[in-house]
């Protein structure tokens, strides 16, 4: 693996383990996620993918019984020792599998995070809202009804609203958890184009059930299975000559 000696990785994961009660959901995971890469994670249900994302922005605080062991360093800081978790979470945008349009106006959905960090001037908020909605490929559809409820948009629109909201945090890291589950193929393609452009500005962890989506987007891809990271490699290398039999089976659709 070639790592750039000058730019340190954004995320360093060391011997990470996650338990719910006594049940292990993830164990012995170690790798780096580089600046400005799209890092794909594929794997069947129960592989621990969502749990991994939760550990990164310390959502374990809100999940009763969830324990995280090992170490995750974000921008050089061990997230377990971060006092100001709110600042940490602001630097990490998250998009869930099911779209969550908050029951606020479309405008307020996107302006919420800037307002929470203290942006008050209307002109500045306007600008952020327009920029984020445009980048999430939603602006043209909603620019004439910014005051209507975000939670009543169609599923695909809500998912783009969710992405716009994540972008409004001006994050360094974007965590996408199976974002295309509730989105039609055309919209998915549009969002994928957006993600490719975003790579210039931020780092993306893309958890996906669609292996072809990882292939299209990810620079490197990790294969999770049953709470372990089975294999990690540059995406094309992983897809064309995986070394582990389990990976080959999964990619070949032969998984029982």
């Amino acid at each position, binding site marked *: 693996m070639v790592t750039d000696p000058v730019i340190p990785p954004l995320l360093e994961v060391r011997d990470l383990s996650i338990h719910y009660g006594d049940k292990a959901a993830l164990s012995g995971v170690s790798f780096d996620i580089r600046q400005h890469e799209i890092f794909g994670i594929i794997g069947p249900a129960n592989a621990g993918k969502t749990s991994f994302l939760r550990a990164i*922005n310390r*959502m374990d605080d*809100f999940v*009763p019984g969830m324990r995280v062991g090992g170490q995750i360093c974000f921008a050089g800081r061990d997230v377990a020792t971060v006092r100001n*978790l*709110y*600042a*940490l*979470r*602001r630097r*990490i*945008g*998250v998009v*869930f599998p*099911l779209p*969550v*349009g*908050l*029951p*606020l106006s479309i405008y307020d959905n996107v302006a*919420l*995070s800037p307002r*929470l*960090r203290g942006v008050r001037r209307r002109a500045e908020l306007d600008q952020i809202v327009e920029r984020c909605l445009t980048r999430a490929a939603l602006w043209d559809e909603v620019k004439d009804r910014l005051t209507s*409820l975000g*939670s*009543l948009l169609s599923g695909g629109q809500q998912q783009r609203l*969710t992405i716009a*909201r*994540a972008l409004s*945090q001006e994050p360094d890291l974007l965590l996408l958890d199976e974002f295309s589950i509730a989105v039609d193929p055309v919209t998915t393609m549009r969002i994928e184009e957006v993600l490719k452009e975003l790579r210039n500005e931020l780092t993306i962890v893309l958890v996906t059930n669609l292996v072809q989506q990882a292939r299209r987007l990810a620079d490197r891809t990790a294969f999770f299975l049953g709470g372990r990271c089975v294999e990690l490699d540059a995406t094309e290398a992983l897809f064309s000559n995986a070394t582990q039999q389990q990976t080959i089976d999964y990619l070949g659709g032969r998984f029982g």
Partner: protein
Amino acid sequence: MSSFDGFSSTPLEQRNNSVQQLVRLLFLTITLLLLIPAVATIVVLIVEGAPGLSLEFFLDKPRQNGAAGGIAPALVGTVWLTAGALLFALPLGVAAAIYLSEYAKDNWLTRAINVAIVNLAGVPSIVHALFGVGAFVHFMQFGKSILAASCTLAVMTLPVVIVATRESLQAVPKAFREACWNMGATRWQTIWKVVLPNSGSGILTGLILVVSRAVGETAPIMFTGAVFLRALYPSGVFDKTMALSLHLFNVSTQVNDVPRHVPFAVALTLIGVVLAMNAAAIALRMRLRGRKKW
């Protein structure tokens, strides 16, 4: 035997159908029967009480122990008591509900508190009355006063405010909270921006329940601040006051030579006050509910 055309009903289906019709009729009858007492009460009140209603009845002070004159001080007193109860019960109840629903960890203590609250709602009002005498009249040294009576009413209605509010807080989907937390919002920011604005209907339900009980209850105020006769309007929270519910008790059982229509007129006013305030709250709640939010 008829040939099978796909839609003719079998004997079993016919029987199921007649059973279903019977059940429907039975339950409809029961529902209508249950309505009779309620409707009858209102009809009697209107027929008997309406002749006693007049502008003077609402604006005058009682004379001859309530046998003549009006009910103005009782009406005003009830408004004071109800407003006082609301002032204490709503903010405290909503705060407790927010704590229990949004902050408290799900452990034995929280569960014990929740059970206790549900049970408190079932404590008879006379028990609350005695508690009010001990706690507010004597211990807090409010004396027999509007303040003591309002506090007693508030304590009595707190459990229902808490339960109603907590339920409506919990009706707000968890996903909204998680989305906010993920954005770096604090728990309070999440509650303030997203959860509370969508739980208005539960808070209004609490308000309705407080008003209905505060206006209607007699026992808790009789011992703590309401008096049979006081021809003065209250001038402060340490005054004693008349109240509609107690006045009704008074003119129907305690005073001689009361004209027949007076108790009915007082009762009609009492029900009118409750219904009017509830109608306002229900209308507001329907407006909140009517707008679909997700």
